[in-house]
């Protein structure tokens, strides 16, 4: 080939490559912009759902507590179901909002010094009525000498709450749920380790990664037995990682599940 021809061809290819790169950059910018719009949409819709739910729950509580006059037992049961359903819906909306803020990197960590056992005890107490209703037993085991943490207390509570909520949801009546707190050493740093275990339906090893993925449910069919946003474990993972820790599951189908997370004892920032 003549040297001039080869220079021309090379220049032409450079131009083509530059055009392709520009196009890719434009597509990338467009995708990022759409992603930001989706996140904003989720945040707005969550707020718009919370407001009427607040009104529904407050009105129902006014009726339940007899402030507008006494109710019959059947009426009270019915109103209690409205409140229960409303609070469940509110929780799902809250999860969507937390997910949206996490996806947009809008979640910030506000660390404080606290002991994980206080958080576990609080979450356990909140879930006790549900455990009793389902006929499940809960045990909490804390290894003596576990140090206090510097982490975002609300976020850690959210993680424990999501894990315990899942354990309750996926464990049939008569089963056991437990929380075990220990301290471990990872890469020379002391970590607090929390295990939330159950004797429930378990998760096949090939689905272990899937459960932490957003919107993923091991059984996505409309007829599935266990409902939820599919965001609980995605959020748990994001919150644990934001606080400098890691989360994983050990489980076999039919043999219960053990979810673990660790958090470094020092400030995560």
């Amino acid at each position: 080939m003549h040297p001039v021809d080869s220079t021309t061809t090379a220049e032409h290819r450079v131009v083509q490559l530059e055009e392709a790169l520009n196009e890719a950059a434009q597509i990338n910018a467009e995708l990022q912009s759409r992603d930001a719009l989706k996140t904003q949409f989720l945040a707005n819709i969550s707020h718009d759902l919370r407001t009427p739910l607040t009104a529904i729950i407050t009105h129902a509580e006014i009726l339940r507590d007899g402030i507008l006059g006494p109710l019959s037992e059947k009426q009270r049961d019915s109103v209690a179901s409205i409140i229960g359903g409303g609070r469940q819906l509110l929780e799902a909306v809250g999860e969507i909002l937390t997910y949206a803020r996490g996806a947009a990197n809008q979640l910030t960590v506000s660390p404080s010094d606290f002991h994980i056992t206080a958080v576990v005890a609080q979450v356990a107490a909140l879930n006790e009525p549900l455990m009793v209703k389902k006929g499940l037993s809960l045990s909490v085991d804390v290894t003596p000498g576990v140090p206090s943490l510097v982490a975002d207390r609300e976020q850690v509570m959210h993680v424990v709450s999501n894990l315990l909520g899942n354990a309750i949801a996926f464990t049939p009546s008569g089963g056991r749920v437990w929380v075990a707190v220990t301290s471990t050493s990872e890469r020379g740093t002391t970590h607090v380790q929390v295990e939330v275990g159950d004797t429930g339906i378990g998760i096949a090893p090939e689905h272990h990664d899937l459960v932490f993925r957003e919107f993923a449910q091991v059984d996505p069919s409309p007829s599935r037995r266990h409902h939820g946003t599919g965001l609980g474990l995605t959020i748990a993972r994001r919150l644990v990682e934001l606080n400098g820790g890691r989360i994983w599951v050990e489980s076999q189908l039919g043999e219960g599940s053990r979810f673990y997370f660790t958090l470094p004892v020092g400030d995560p920032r």
Partner: protein
Amino acid sequence: MEARPHILIVDDSADVTGALRVLFEETGNDVSVANTIRDAVAVAEGRAVDVMLLDLTLPDGDGLTVLTTMRARATEPRVTAALTGRAEPEVAARCSAAGCRAVLVKPVPIAELLRCVREWTT
């Protein structure tokens, strides 16, 4: 006869203010409702407010502006509690710095709301 406590509910949702109005009127309080910063400030000019329940997101700005404006005009309620959708430490710190006695996450269980308001008005 002792005057009934005056509760001011500031929230831009008529559904929410409607529910809280029923709750507090039926439990022996006088209730005023405002949907904007401007209306809330005007209510306090007309009658002293014992307890203000203040939403943080209002159509004409940050809800805490209501409190700072009232303070500047010497019409600040005896007690102000912020109503918010999210209990985040930075929100709580901002409310506390502005002078709110409490930060309540909506929907606040009515038993808790009534207990707080009773405590603040006696």
